[in-house]
Each structure stands twice: as structure tokens, then as C-alpha cells.
């Protein structure tokens, strides 16, 4: 055994707890850089000498054969270094993320949506590239475009196979139900409007190598796409991303084209190339949230209990599949929201249209599933003259029975009753609803509405194999820690949370943990930072890596000091080795000298989950996150204008890793959801041109659209029933759907104009125009 046992009891201040461990509010790791403008986004990076700039040339028709492409004037324009078209792609002209070969980098023989890239100009400056682009002369043989979901009625083409979920005999249940009604709901799409637009910069290296800085949520996919397009193995491509200025799903696959074009140009011209589209081009050429047309047919009893239901979720997918398969699947996975269906059939229809290919967006189809489901609840409530909350309660999943979903997963962690009961009380829902009904009797022009709506959201990628993650942790000899993992930081505070987890494991202050840029060179084969899974997956992987090192340190110390391993305790920047304290750094230094490996890779895969899509059965979700919101609105019945008077939220994030950051996700998600359901309207003209392609025409919420009173609370009592990272729950997507409360409150205010006898069937987004038109419809129906 070891002869010298120099336990050094150096004098250091023993902290009670570390600064910035798990479960405490901690500012975003870059907050001080955000507020000073020092945080570096890709466009802020120092450009290598000779950096060139690319601009994409977009189609000006929505559907047609390309007859001729004349780019002479483009090539001759000032500052132009070269032009790229499909023939200039060394590898494959395809960036379809699901491998369906339906998404070219550059259109070759035909264009399938207005705004589809056909070529790229590479020039000395971005301005020169943009100007040169305008000089292209392209002729088309135009074909009538299929723009709206309704346009597909004659010849519905699917971009990807549909899904059917079924449990029980829905047709039979509908037949025998005491009450039955059917209807259709139109749900609009949504532009991500990340404040930092798409951007990529590629720097050519030796041999086939290229380094790409990409504003992406999915560096591994960018790596694969770039390799594929260049015709080089993945190991030639390194993709790095330190932070992105918002993603929301819009940078899961939609950054691929910019990275691919930058990389092709960089290799071709041997210079760094940056591609940053103008905001308008970004909005025209990249995908959005899917809009849906949902048909429902529901049978229910006199209490409003659903007995059987049949749904068809038809989605505008655009010209290619992109992620439309899993997005439309997830819509079906949430057609139940928080409700038990004794008998159900739900079918998706992922439809081809001549519009930009729709993609991931916070909630990934789930919100559309939930909104349609909540419309059905509303329909039942108006049909039976009940408070919709009563109908909701009658249909909530049970805890021991009535707890099997349409996809045959048993809901094991149901807390919706408690969440809704607490919110009902804290928001004073019943009294306010009574007051509002009284107010509406007196007030002629201004009407009010209130709604309390629940959310239950399934957590995990439904493609089971994506539920894996890696991390890399190095401990340096001074005790400082370098942390890397596969997740990307897009504002959600992922880096902060994962660093807190590592700080907690090692029991060192957060500022001893260096957060580093995500790169495919350190952690390979990562999944997108999406599906709210960033912290669940990467936090676990980082914890595993930290524990590996910690275990080695313990084994070393136990051996070196000849004490039992159980007597070695890490606490508040020190390690107690069998009653002898030392600093963490000291132990690390000793371990280094003893040649202990102080670096580890961590890996995690979510347990328990499986999914058989063909059969429509399995356990696609590890657990569920829950929440509820109560919103009150006022509308002006002369103009349809409205405002949100108050919103109360109670949301379940399990045992929060960082309450401040989680609260920010809940508030931000709610407002973003509210924008989707109110003022954010995508408007295509009959030629398939998106006319709301800039913030001047596409209106996301402003500070003055917030609820005047906005109370958000986390369900502090909640702990994840599953062993997710430190019993927390995912928070990125679920709060988005809390905004359904706003839509339904608007609906109630409209319904008041016909004494709440008719369901207003307010479609989304409920712009002032839609609100006014709904009032007019009710007037007409009331008169009839």
C-alpha cells in the first residue's frame, strides 16, 4: 500500500454549498454577453481573409418545368466570383433529411414551390451577391399550383405514408352514442421568426475537409448533408455551433441548404464562404409549422363524456417530406391531449402542396393535435350548454383506469387533476366566469371570455433511436472542467442546465465548468436538439461522464489513502477523504500524478421506450409533462379587435433544474403559442406566393400583446415519476399549448353574442378579422 499519506488539510474556506448547482435559479451562462453585445453569433465572427458571400437564386413560380436558365448577366455582375447550379454539386444534389430523395439543393428540371432555390451566386460581398442574383433570367412552363389543403381534394398526393391510431371500435361507439356531432377546424401554420436568421460559414481545409459554422439545432445532420453533397465521408466535415439566435425547430433541418451551399462554394473556390439569406428570402425559402384541416366526428353522453371519436388530420406539408412524417404522427399522438377516448380512430394525411416544405416547430405537430381536440371539447360543451371545464373534467385520463392512450401506452404519471384543480382555485376561475357572464349581459360592444385549458405532452423522440446522447468531460489539473455535449444552445438555457448538473456532480462552483461550443468533432452522431429532449438526454450523458471521472477519483483516493470508498464525500468545492478534507483541485492534481484518466465520454439512451408504427402501438413516450392555463380576454364586437386581460399558468416541469430558466421557457412558449393562434397569419396568394414574408406583414407578438396580468407558476410539488435527469421534466415544447386558453377564451367571448348556444368554431389564427366574421356568423345563425 501507499507509504506516504500526505493528507493536506490546507486552509480553504469551506462553503456550505456550491454556487450554481442543480435546482437553483441561475442566470443564462451568456446573459452578460447578450446584454453587452459581446456574445458571438456566426455573422459576428471574424471572417478569414478573402471570405466570399453567397446568395440563393429563388424560383419565381410555384409549379412548373424549368425551360431555360440564363445566368450570363449574373456571372458578369460586379464582384461575382462564380455561380453554382445543380451541375456544380460534387456529390448528390439532395438534402432530404429522411432519405426520401425529394429535396434537391438546387432545382434542376422543375420547381415545386415559389422561392425554391435554383442557383447560388458567390461574390466578394453579400451586397454584390444579392444584386447579381436579380439579374438571372429563368423561363418556366407554368403549371397550376396546388396551394391550399382544399386544393388537394381532387388529387390528394401524400409526401410520406400516413399513420392510423385506433383503439376500440370508434364507428360502433359513434353509432351508439346518445349525442353525436361533427365538424372541421382549420389551423394555420407559423413562421419561426428566430431573430437570428439562417446562416452558415464554411472554411475549406486540406484534402476533402471542410469546417462549417452553422446556425443549426442539428450539427450532426448538417455534417451528414454537407458530406453527402460534397461526396466525402462524414469524417471530412466538422460542424460547430456555439449558440444560435433562436431555432424553435426552424433550424432542425432548414439550415442544411445554407451549410451545403457554403461548403460546396468553399471547396470550389478555396475560400471561406458565408451564406446569410435576407430575412424575406429566409421566410420564403424555409419551412414553417404545418397548417392542418382537421375533421372530427364525436359521440358523447349527456355528461359530455366522449364515447367514440374519429379524426382526420390533413396537413399541408409542402413539396417534400422533410419531417412531415413524424410531425403529422405527433399530431395524432396528441389528438387526445389529456382525455381518455374509450374508442378512437385517428388518421393523418400528410399532403403534397406547391408550397415550401413544412418542418419542425416547437411542439412538432403536437399543438395542432391538441387544438383540434380542445375544439371538440368546446363543441360538446356548447352542445350541452355546459362550462367546457366540466366537460374537460369528465374526460380527463384516470389514474388507475381510463388511462390508455390511442397508441396503447398507459398513462402512469397523470397529475392533470391536481394541476387543474390548483389552477382553478388560484385563478379564481369559477367566480370570474360568473362575473364575465354577468358583464356580457350588460356590455353591448365589449364582450369577455375566459377559458381554462390543460396540456399533457409526451416526451421523447417518437423515432426511438434518436433518444440517445453523448457528452465529453475533461477535468484539468487545476480542477477546472471542460464540458461538451451534443446539444445546441439556442436560448433555452441548455448549456447552463447541463453545466449545473456537472457542477453538482463534482460539487464545484458553476464557474469552474467551462461550457464549450457544440462540435461534431468532440461528440459524434448526435440527435437534433429538439423534442424538448435537450436537457433530458445531454444532461444525463454529461452526468454519466462526470460520474465516470468521479468514480475514478474515488477509486484512486480510496486506494491512495487507504480509506473505504464510501467515506469519500464530494461537497462544496472540496472532497472529504475519510475525514480529511482537501480541495477538489488538490485531489485532481494527485490523481493526475498517479496517472488517472481525467477525461470521460458519457452516453445515455432513454429506457423503456419502443414504438411499432405499423401496428400503432407501443410506448413512444418516456413520460408526460403537464400544465394548465386560464386566460381571460376582451373583444370588440364592432371590429373583432381583442386583448388578453389576464393569464394564469401552472406548469409541471418535475423537479426544476433551474426555476428561472424554466419559468422563461413557460412564459416564452405561451406567448409564442398565443402568436400562432392570434395574429400570426401566413397568407399565400393564388399563385402560391407567400405575401406575409417579413415582419412588416407577419405579426408575431409584441410586449403590448402580453396578458395585462400574467401569473406563471411551476408546480413545485412535482417530481418526475421516471428517473429522468434529477427528476426534472422537459420544458421546451409543452407550455406552447397553454395558449389554447386564449383561443378558447376568444371563442367564449364570441359565443356570448348568441347567448352561448352556438359553438363559434373560431379557426386559427383568430385574427381580428376571424373574430368579427365569427360574430357575424353567429348573428346570421341566431337570426335564422
Amino acid at each position: 500500500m501507499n507509504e506516504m499519506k500526505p493528507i493536506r488539510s490546507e486552509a480553504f474556506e469551506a462553503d456550505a454549498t456550491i454556487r450554481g448547482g442543480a435546482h437553483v435559479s441561475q442566470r443564462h451562462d451568456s446573459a452578460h454577453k447578450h446584454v453587452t453585445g459581446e456574445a458571438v453569433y456566426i455573422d459576428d465572427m471574424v471572417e478569414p481573409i478573402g471570405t466570399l458571400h453567397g446568395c440563393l437564386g429563388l424560383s419565381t413560380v410555384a409549379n412548373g418545368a424549368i425551360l431555360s436558365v440564363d445566368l450570363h448577366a449574373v456571372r458578369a455582375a460586379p464582384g461575382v466570383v462564380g455561380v453554382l447550379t445543380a451541375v456544380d454539386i460534387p456529390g448528390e444534389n439532395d438534402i432530404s433529411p429522411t432519405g426520401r430523395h425529394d429535396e434537391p439543393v438546387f432545382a434542376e428540371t422543375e420547381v415545386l414551390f415559389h422561392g425554391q432555390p435554383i442557383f447560388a451566386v458567390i461574390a466578394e460581398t453579400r451586397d454584390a451577391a444579392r444584386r447579381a442574383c436579380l439579374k438571372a433570367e429563368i423561363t418556366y412552363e407554368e403549371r397550376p399550383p396546388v396551394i391550399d389543403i382544399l386544393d388537394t381534394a381532387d388529387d390528394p398526393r401524400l409526401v410520406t405514408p400516413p399513420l392510423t391510431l385506433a383503439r376500440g371500435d370508434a364507428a360502433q361507439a359513434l353509432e351508439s352514442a346518445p349525442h353525436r356531432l361533427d365538424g372541421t377546424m382549420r389551423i394555420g401554420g407559423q413562421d419561426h421568426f428566430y431573430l437570428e436568421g439562417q446562416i452558415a460559414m464554411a472554411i475549406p481545409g486540406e484534402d476533402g475537409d471542410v469546417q462549417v459554422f452553422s446556425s443549426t439545432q442539428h450539427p450532426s445532420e448538417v455534417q451528414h448533408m454537407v458530406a453527402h453533397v460534397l461526396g466525402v465521408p462524414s469524417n471530412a466535415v466538422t460542424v460547430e455551433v456555439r449558440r444560435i439566435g433562436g431555432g424553435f425547430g426552424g433550424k432542425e433541418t432548414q439550415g442544411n441548404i445554407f451549410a451545403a451551399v457554403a461548403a460546396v462554394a468553399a471547396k470550389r473556390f478555396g475560400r471561406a464562404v458565408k451564406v446569410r439569406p435576407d430575412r424575406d428570402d429566409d421566410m420564403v425559402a424555409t419551412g414553417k409549422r404545418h397548417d392542418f384541416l382537421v375533421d372530427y366526428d364525436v359521440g358523447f353522453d349527456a355528461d359530455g363524456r366522449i364515447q367514440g371519436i374519429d379524426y382526420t388530420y390533413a396537413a399541408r406539408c409542402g413539396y417534400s417530406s422533410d419531417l412531415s412524417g413524424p410531425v403529422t404522427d405527433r399530431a395524432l399522438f396528441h389528438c387526445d391531449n389529456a382525455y381518455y377516448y374509450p374508442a378512437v380512430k385517428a388518421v393523418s394525411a400528410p399532403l403534397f402542396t406547391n408550397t415550401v416544405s413544412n418542418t419542425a416547430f416547437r411542439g412538432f405537430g403536437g399543438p395542432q393535435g391538441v387544438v383540434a381536440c380542445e375544439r371538440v371539447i368546446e363543441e360538446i360543451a356548447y352542445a350541452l350548454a355546459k362550462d367546457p371545464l366540466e366537460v374537460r373534467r369528465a374526460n380527463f385520463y384516470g389514474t388507475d383506469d381510463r388511462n390508455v392512450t390511442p397508441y396503447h401506452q398507459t398513462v402512469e404519471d397523470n397529475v392533470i387533476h391536481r394541476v387543474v384543480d390548483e389552477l382553478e382555485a388560484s385563478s379564481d376561475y369559477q367566480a370570474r366566469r360568473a362575473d364575465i357572464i354577468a358583464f356580457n349581459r350588460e356590455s353591448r360592444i365589449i364582450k369577455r371570455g375566459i377559458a381554462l385549458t390543460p396540456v399533457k405532452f409526451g416526451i421523447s423522440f417518437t423515432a426511438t433511436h434518436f433518444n440517445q446522447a453523448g457528452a465529453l468531460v475533461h477535468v484539468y489539473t487545476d480542477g477546472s472542467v471542460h464540458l461538451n455535449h451534443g446539444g445546441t444552445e439556442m436560448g433555452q438555457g441548455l448549456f447552463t442546465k447541463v453545466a449545473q448538473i456537472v457542477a453538482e456532480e463534482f460539487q464545484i462552483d458553476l464557474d469552474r465548468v467551462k461550457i464549450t461550443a457544440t462540435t461534431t468533432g468532440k461528440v459524434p452522431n448526435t440527435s437534433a436538439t429538439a423534442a424538448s429532449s435537450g436537457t433530458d438526454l445531454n444532461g444525463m450523458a454529461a452526468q454519466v461522464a462526470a460520474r465516470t471521472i468521479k468514480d475514478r477519483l474515488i477509486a484512486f483516493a480510496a486506494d491512495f489513502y487507504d480509506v473505504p470508498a464510501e467515506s469519500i464525500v464530494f461537497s462544496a468545492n472540496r472532497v472529504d477523504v475519510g475525514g480529511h478534507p482537501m480541495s477538489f483541485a488538490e485531489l485532481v492534481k494527485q490523481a493526475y500524478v498517479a496517472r488517472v484518466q481525467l477525461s470521460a465520454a458519457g452516453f445515455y439512451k432513454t429506457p423503456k421506450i419502443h414504438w411499432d408504427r405499423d401496428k400503432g402501438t407501443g410506448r413512444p413516450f418516456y413520460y408526460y409533462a403537464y400544465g394548465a392555463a386560464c386566460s381571460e380576454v376582451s373583444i370588440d364586437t364592432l371590429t373583432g379587435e381583442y386583448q388578453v386581460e389576464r393569464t394564469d399558468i401552472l406548469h409541471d416541469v418535475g423537479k426544476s433544474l433551474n426555476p428561472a430558466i424554466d419559468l422563461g421557457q413557460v412564459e416564452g412558449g405561451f406567448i409564442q403559442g398565443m402568436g400562432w393562434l392570434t395574429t400570426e397569419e401566413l397568407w399565400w396568394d393564388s399563385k402560391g406566393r407567400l405575401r406575409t414574408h417579413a415582419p412588416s406583414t407577419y405579426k408575431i407578438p409584441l410586449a403590448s400583446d402580453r396578458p395585462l396580468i400574467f401569473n406563471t407558476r411551476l408546480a413545485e410539488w412535482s417530481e418526475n415519476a421516471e428517473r429522468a435527469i434529477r427528476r426534472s421534466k422537459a420544458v421546451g415544447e409543452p407550455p406552447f399549448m397553454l395558449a389554447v386558453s386564449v383561443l378558447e377564451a376568444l371563442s367564449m367571448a364570441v359565443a356570448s353574442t348568441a347567448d352561448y348556444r352556438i359553438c363559434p368554431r373560431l379557426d386559427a389564427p383568430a385574427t381580428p378579422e376571424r373574430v368579427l366574421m365569427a360574430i357575424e356568423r353567429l348573428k346570421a345563425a341566431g337570426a335564422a
Partner: protein
Amino acid sequence: MTLSTRTHIRFRLNDRTVTLNTLRPTETLLDFLRLERRLTGTKEGCAEGDCGACTVLVGRLNRDGVLVYETVTSCIRFVASLDGCHVVTIEHLKGKDGTLHPVQQAMVDHHGSQCGFCTPGIVMALYALWMRDAHPSRPTIEKALQGNLCRCTGYEPIIRAAEAMAEISQKTADPLQAERDEVRSQLAEWQTGETVDMGDGADRLILPASIDALAQSFAANPKATIVAGSTDVGLWVTKQMRPIGPLIFVKQVEGLDAIEETDGGIRIGATVSYTDASAVLSETYPAMRAYFDRIGGDQVRNMGTIGGNIANGSPIGDTPPPLIALGATVTLNNAGTHRTVPLEEFFIDYGNQDRQPGEFVERIDIPKLRNNEIFAVYKISKRRDEDISALAGAFKLMIEAGRITDARIAFGGMAATPKRARHVEAALVGRDWSIETIEAALPAFESDYQPLSDWRASSDYRMMTAKNLLRRCFLEQQGETASLKRFAAVEA
């Protein structure tokens, strides 16, 4: 009088003086900051003035010689227009020793940033607010943030930060306080009354010092583009990449931003900003206050001018409907010769105004309300703030002894130009001021207007709402609540 001219632009950028002997007239401040100075804290989110990520402050000596700082969107502001100004960017806020400014610290403490991309612009907007009002109320904060989009936070933490700004003690001197005297004297020194004339051909830019100099330059270069606040012209450059040179900048022209009370009313120079116009018009026509508060956001209101809003001839410009209803006239200057036309006659057709080559808008005269006249003006847009009107309607009605004796009603968004509702007016005048009269007059809207359908609103919605705005006007006069007020106390 011979006018002295200068062939360079000079301004102060944070704590440095910038002198430019050559300058592309359409170079934007944002590109200049990011590409030439590598001051990359200021971000580009849209390049069209709508997101606020590029917000910086511009300090200038106002017409009373006071140094004032205003937020502007640097993406659509041309560098040339900064001659004699002080440009302040996010990089200037932090103390030399690295301590954060209270505004920045409040944003950190209250978790006001997530992705951080909107944050520099928001900090600058809050900084401008903090200078005016360190203890702002919620309505004031919301107004200060109308021009800033944040997609991540939902704004709540930003509002909390704004409310907390005052509580954070200032550890190092506020930079603009510390430099105030120095900046004042530097800007005063630069007020030499020179006309700037640089470059040739399409790359020529002129900053006339006086109204006469402007009249001469424009008469001599009638193909030049006049640039006032550039809240339109900026987009021609950043979005359409239109060649528009040579440029004649007008915001610095001495006297063109005058505001005067005249015998019958108020006279407003062409380059008076929305912000300044709002202050004076709201006094005389209280209904204007809430209306102006919904034009653009602070940045646009600080830059955009009444003259520009009229001269661009847009059918959806917000100032023409109320100005027409009030009976305003516009005075044009052509090489020193003036003529005055009623504003409604200035708008001939879509894209066609009664303005000759070389002629510019010099001022607007707005009569005061007479006894027994009521005035109301309403804007309808998809989003409450910083949105272009789907339609806007203004009503000036003389009610004497329960009868409508005179009516001027004008709408934007209902026709190819801002236009009076003459049939509706005729259906009202001479009749009782009653709901029956109002209801009977509504069909007349269909004789006045055949509005378009577009992404802002359908034709049906525009028509229905136009009629309902007349109803609203009547009901509100009866004391009934017929519109939503976000902050009742403030807007009343």
C-alpha cells in the same frame, strides 16, 4: 447669399469622431457599424425597421439646442443622415472597468435574455427609456418596446427588468452623462450651416442646410430622391436594391422641422417626426395621442416624418386620414415658389400625387376644431402595435343642436388613395345626430369605397369595419365603451 459647402460627413460614434470623405449615399448605418467598424453588438434581424435588433441611439441638438438621444433602427438609416450627430451603440454602455450599466444589469438579473439576439436592441431601447424616465410605468415600458421583437422570452422578464432598472445603483458613470458637455459642444461646433455635397452622378449626396438650398438643389436635380426619415426609402435599398441616387437628405434642413401655432391652427414642417408631431397634435386633438402611439414603434416614430408619410402617397399611410378629415392643406415648394393644396387633392391616384419634378413638401397647415366639432380617429390592424393599418378612419363632425351640420370623413386602406367618404358625409349632414341616422348612412360606404382583399384584411372585413367605426364614433360620443383600451387610465 453664397452657400458654403462641405464635401465630407462627420459624426461622433461612441467616443470617436468619424470623418468620411467618400461615402456610398445608400450605405446603411448598420452595415457601416458591422462591416466597417466591426461593432458587431448591433444585430440585423430583418433589415426593414421592424424588429429593433439593430437599435442604436442617435443624439442631436434639437430645435431648442438641447442634446436629445433617440432610438433609431440602424438598418434603414443611411450613414449620410448622421452628419453632425452622435451615434451610440451597445458597445458604449458598459463601464470602462467592465461593470454593466444598470439597464444591462437589470436584464441579467431578471433573465431578460434567452437566445440573446434581440437583446442589444432591447437594451438600447430600454436605455433610451431610462434616460427619459428611470421609473417607467408599464404603459410607458410597453410603448418603449413597440419597436422591438423578442421571439424567446415572451417579454415578461424584460418588463420586469425595465421596472427594476432604477433600483440598480450606478457603479460607474453613465457614459452619456459623463460626456454630455463634451458632446454638446462638439455637436454645436459642427452646426456651421454648411451644405454637404459629396460624390458624383448616382453616387452624389446632398445635405442642404436651408430650405432655400434644398429648393435649389432639388430644382437642379429633379431626378434625385429626397430622403427624410428613410423609413420607406431605406427599404427600397435594403429590400428592393433599387438604384435611387443621387440623394437629397432633408432632415437636417434648418426650419423644415418647424412647428408653429398659427391663427387658425397648427403648422407643421415636413420633417417633423411622428414623435414630435404627436406631442403637439395630441394637445389640440386629444384623439390623436392614442392614434400616433400606434404608428410604428419608437424608432420609426423618431425617424419617420409627416412630410414623408404624405409624400409617399401610400393608401395606407396613417397621417393622411386624420389630416384630411381635419381639413389640412399641404404647401409645396418648387424652386422657391410655393403653392398650397387641400391635402385630399394632393392624392390623385395610386402612386400619383400632385407633385411636380423638383417640388417638395414644405409644410402642412391644420385648422383647429371649431366649436361644436367633434373629432375621432381609429386604426385597425392585425396586431395592435407596430403594424400597418388594414384601414384607418377619421371623423370630424359638427353637431349643432342635435343635428349634424358638417362632416368630413376620410379613410385609408379603403381605396387606392386616402379618400374622403363623400357619400357617407352627405348621408349625415343635415340629419339628427342619432343612431338611426348613423344606421341609415352605412350603405353609403359602398358608394364611397370598394376596398381590396389582401394579406392585411379581406374586402368584406374592411367594409364591415369601416361602417362599424362610424358606429363606434357615435357610441363613444354617447359615452358608451365601444373600443378596447389596454391601459384605460393612460389612453382616456
